[in-house]
């Protein structure tokens, strides 16, 4: 059941929980609060104004921000395509290896953690000639950058799915469902995926966050995304850049919050009719 708490029988006391969470939470709020304060400042005098915020709707400044609006659209497209790559290419492979090719599990893990040993700034040197080919095949649209981002998120998505996959006994679950007459489609859809929901969700969360925060590959391949556009804007209008950074942060936070709420309110078990 999705609504109940996981009980392991060794939970922290109420006091310990409140102390740990509030101390860490408060420390992490300080930089955000400082950014908010900065957007109301007038120079270094310590006085405050709302003009940096009202400037956002100022038609005279619209041109300054249009590049950023495009960049936000680009980053959202990239996030969607990257999550699709994780769910369509990585997830089925991981389940297949778990069920049919147990000996390949170490190989798959090894491949998936290669992007840790090969950071984005290393990868980008080799990606440049490859994107020369990609552009001739798929065109120069921004979504093609998701091919590189799918690799960047690989270790994180893999770990998220694998810690879920390792905690459930996929072989026994699917054998049980198969012996009860379920086809592989049913096994996947009604048995494995509901059990893997947390891992899939965590993998998607972290993929979206990685893509929206990505700077290195986009900037060195001369593509426009949220981060490169923010850096560009900060050089002409630091206040606007911080405001947009905060807004982006807030929107992404809300987006992930909604995804989290929706998926946890969805019934976690197959309906009795099916």
């Amino acid at each position: 059941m999705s609504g109940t708490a996981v009980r392991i029988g060794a939970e922290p006391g109420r006091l310990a929980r409140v102390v740990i969470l509030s101390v860490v939470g408060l420390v992490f709020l300080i930089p955000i609060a400082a950014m908010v304060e900065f957007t109301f400042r007038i120079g270094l005098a310590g006085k405050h104004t709302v003009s940096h915020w009202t400037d956002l709707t100022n038609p005279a400044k619209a041109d300054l921000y249009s590049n950023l609006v495009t960049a936000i659209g680009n980053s959202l497209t990239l996030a969607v395509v990257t999550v699709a790559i994780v769910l369509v290419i990585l997830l089925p492979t991981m389940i297949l290896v778990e069920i049919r090719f147990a000996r390949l599990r170490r190989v798959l893990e090894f491949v998936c953690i290669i992007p840790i040993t090969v950071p984005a700034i290393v990868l980008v040197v080799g990606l440049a000639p490859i994107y020369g080919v990609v552009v001739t095949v798929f065109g120069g649209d921004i979504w093609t950058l998701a091919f590189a981002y799918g690799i960047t998120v690989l270790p994180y998505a893999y770990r998220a799915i694998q810690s879920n996959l390792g905690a459930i006994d996929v072989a026994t679950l699917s054998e049980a469902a198969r012996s009860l007459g379920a086809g592989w489609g049913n096994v996947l859809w009604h048995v494995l995926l509901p059990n893997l929901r947390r891992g899939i969700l965590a993998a998607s969360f972290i993929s979206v966050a990685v893509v929206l925060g990505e700077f290195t590959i986009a900037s060195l391949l001369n593509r426009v995304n949220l981060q490169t556009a923010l850096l560009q804007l900060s050089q002409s209008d630091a206040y606007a850049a911080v405001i947009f950074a905060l807004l982006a942060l807030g929107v992404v936070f809300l987006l992930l919050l909604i995804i989290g709420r929706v998926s946890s309110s969805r019934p976690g078990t197959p309906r009795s009719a099916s």
Partner: protein
Amino acid sequence: MTVANAPTLVANLEAPTPAREPSSSVRRRGRGMVAMLGLTPFAAYVLLFLLLPTLIALATGFFTGKGAFTLGNLAALFTPTILMTFFSSFWVSALTAVLGAVIGALVCYALLGTKSSGALRTVIDSASSVLAQFGGVMLAFAFIATIGIQGVVTTLLKTQFGINIYANGVWLYQVPGLVLPYLYFQVPLMIITFMPALEGLKSQWAEANATLGGTKFSYWTRIAAPVLAPSFFGSLLLLFANAFSSYATAAALISQGSQIVPLQIRSALISETVLGRENMAGALALGMVVVMIVVMTGYSLLQSRTARWQR
């Protein structure tokens, strides 16, 4: 019983592969071929966008700008300037990985027993996902606004408590200034990656511990710690790698010089020459990858030990 509850009732042991019946082996082999085909999209993708670019990137260090083979770039890695940047990268990554892992694990522990679909967990999950990648430009802004020379905390400490955090010079734009910003993405990343492992602990283990007269302390030290160790150190290494390869934050904060390896690679890529050499980026990349391979080998040895224990 529902299907979603089933895993908690199934022991988390690696089931031995059931013996194949000889009569069905031909049919199984046929289906095995079909199943093999299922692996090809992933294989092709990884080959094209991971292995190929990696080989291209690492190979460039062995060639001069004119395309002749050289070992000069590799030799240049051992000059004091470059060695110092590797040392800086290493200590910042190690420090923030250890601190991030410990603080993150504490938060995960504090979240145990809370409803996974409750408001608290949903907010923390979402916030962690965002903050784990709050990197680059935004992170630099946040910390300049907080502990910059005119930052909120800097000013507050100076006027209210008479403490000048920059009494010995401004360190925010130096390598030590990276520690706090890096922790700001390390702790949330730890929460995201470690929480599923902590939730994988079985209530039966705690019950068995209690039945046998164990205390909460003995549960954590004798049962939970060994079980969680591979996940913990796996996450810790993820954090180390994350900091070691992080570049945008440093690029935005440190405008003078190239004190860490990724900044050194950037200047090699942009200016084409570091130490007066072409294709130095390839050699630096190779050096970086070598450090990571050493770390990951240690991780893999550690994990196979723990995996043996778990069986």
